[in-house]
């Protein structure tokens, strides 16, 4: 140390005439702590007779003390993903003071970012207290620097949102000073969408004027708010026609959804007068306004059903049990019974089923009876009518007409 001081002092005397010549350096380095600045002046003179006199010299020395100068720096912006973990952000602390120093640090973090740890070189610390305990033992020579790396997580839904992270570095020596540096964490926006349902089958009668409703759910699975373009469409079955989306006529629409949120979209459609068993679909496609290649669709299968009535008329002996076949004979005055059975072979309920049976001239109407309540049966001028308000799919009903052979 003493040798260095002597060299510095000597350098001050010898190098001063040559120092700073032609130098255009704008950046200065501070005079080192412990430097002895020795100022030596020389006086020369002569007298009236121009006699020569020895020059006289004198000096004054000043010793330089310590002045701190921690300087914190960090990138202006970083762009991690959201959500994400294990991100690293480096803060460099440079000692621009004039002697060795160590620092203590503090951090402030905005919403959306959480610090989970710190690293310095190969050392990892889980708390700020541990980091600062370590830094207390790390002397940074004047002009050198140390880098503190912060390990952090980013919350979901932070795409495009700015979170400032600030370090404050304070020198431990006195007279001390402090410096701060802020990095803005701005996660990259990533779009995502999910439309449901994605399947399932619904049976529909041909509309005949009725409008059907299908509700879809559109979910924003991206990390920032997004305005989605909606498009409703039918499948290739030529049965479904789209009427409106969210109440607006046509097939288009839009929805703005916050990250992680969802909204329902109501699609109104009709089914054409097509054969039972026809298959089609109702679809809804949602496309991100942020990223046109981010799109998803939901759909439901439509199966067309109809009612299909078949009828059978059979003749029985009066015991309602013995069938009268083609080779059997009935005798005048004999009582026989006709059984009329209606069956709905279709997939849809039939409404207002009506049977009309004009009896043959060779028989006289006697009476009717039915399999169960629900039939409205009447006879007028030899014609029997029977009606049901409804006949469920696959159901079968019958009634008897008792007649007497003339």
């Amino acid at each position, binding site marked *: 140390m003493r040798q260095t001081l002597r060299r510095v002092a000597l350098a*001050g005397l010898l190098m001063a005439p040559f120092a700073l010549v032609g130098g255009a350096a704008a950046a*200065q380095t501070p005079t080192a702590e412990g430097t002895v600045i020795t100022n030596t002046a020389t006086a*020369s003179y002569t*007298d009236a007779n121009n006699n020569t006199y020895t020059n006289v010299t004198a000096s004054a020395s000043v010793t330089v003390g310590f002045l701190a100068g921690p300087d914190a720096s960090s990138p202006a912006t970083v762009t991690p993903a959201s959500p994400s973990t294990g991100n690293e952000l480096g803060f460099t602390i440079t000692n621009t003071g004039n002697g060795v120093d160590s620092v203590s640090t503090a951090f402030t973090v905005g919403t959306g970012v959480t610090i989970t740890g710190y690293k310095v070189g190969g050392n990892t610390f889980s708390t700020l207290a541990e980091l600062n305990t370590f830094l207390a033992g790390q002397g940074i020579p004047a002009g050198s620097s140390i880098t503190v790396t912060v390990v952090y997580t980013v919350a979901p839904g932070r795409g495009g949102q700015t979170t400032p992270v600030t370090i404050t570095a304070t020198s431990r020596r006195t007279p001390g000073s402090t410096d701060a540096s802020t990095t803005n964490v701005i996660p990259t926006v990533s779009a995502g969408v999910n439309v449901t349902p994605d399947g399932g089958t619904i049976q529909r009668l041909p509309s005949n004027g009725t409008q059907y409703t299908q509700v879809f759910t559109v979910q924003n699975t991206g990390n920032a708010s997004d305005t989605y373009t909606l498009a409703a469409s039918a499948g290739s079955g030529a049965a479904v026609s789209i009427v409106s989306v969210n109440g607006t006529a046509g097939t288009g629409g839009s929805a703005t959804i916050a990250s992680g949120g969802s909204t329902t979209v109501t699609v109104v459609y009709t089914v054409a007068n097509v054969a039972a068993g026809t298959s089609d679909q109702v679809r809804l496609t949602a496309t991100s306004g942020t990223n046109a290649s981010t799109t998803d669709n939901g759909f439901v299968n439509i199966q067309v059903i109809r009612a299909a009535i078949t009828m059978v008329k059979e003749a029985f002996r009066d015991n309602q049990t013995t069938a009268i076949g083609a080779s059997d004979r009935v005798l005048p005055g004999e009582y026989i019974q006709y059984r009329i059975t209606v069956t709905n072979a279709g997939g849809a309920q039939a409404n207002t089923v009506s049977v009309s049976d004009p009896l043959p001239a060779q028989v006289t109407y006697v009476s009717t009876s039915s399999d169960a309540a629900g039939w409205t049966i009447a006879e007028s001028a030899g014609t029997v009518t029977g009606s049901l308000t409804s006949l469920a799919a696959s159901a079968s009903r019958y009634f008897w007409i008792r007649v007497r052979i003339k």
Partner: protein
Amino acid sequence: MKTLFRTVLFALLLAVAATPAVAQQRQALVVTAQNRTAAAEQTAGRKRSDDRARPGDVLRYRLTFTNVTPGAVRGVTLANPLPAGVRFVGGSARTERGDARVEYSADGGRTFSAQPMEEAVVDGRAVTRPVPAERYTHVRWTVGGALAPGATVVAEYDARVSAGSQAPAVTGGR
């Protein structure tokens, strides 16, 4: 008695005559340094805990020359190379002598002038411009007139202890 007196007198004269050069070195020139920044802080109630200079401090150097010869002297020149570690504060050179002129060197003492100039290229054009005062390497006063025996010349200038490029925010400690 007379012999003793003469011996003592002769011894005294010899002592004075034998050390004229030393007497001149000891008194002819005195250089002092005063930390103006620390003094201002003390005036403002912030006395420092040590007497060291810090980067950025302004030191006021005072050169006091005294004519210790029995006769008048002429051509008194006070020359001061700027020591390493400090930079000249422009416009700070002063003396109470009306017949003293101050000159500076920015080329290590080879040439002196009232305002050293340099060649430079600015925006692609060659220009001649004053050298910034902080790059002066020497300051020199030359007294025009004669100095009577016992008369003094006092010259002063300020120099700033080199600091870093950025000024830190001082937090504490004196």
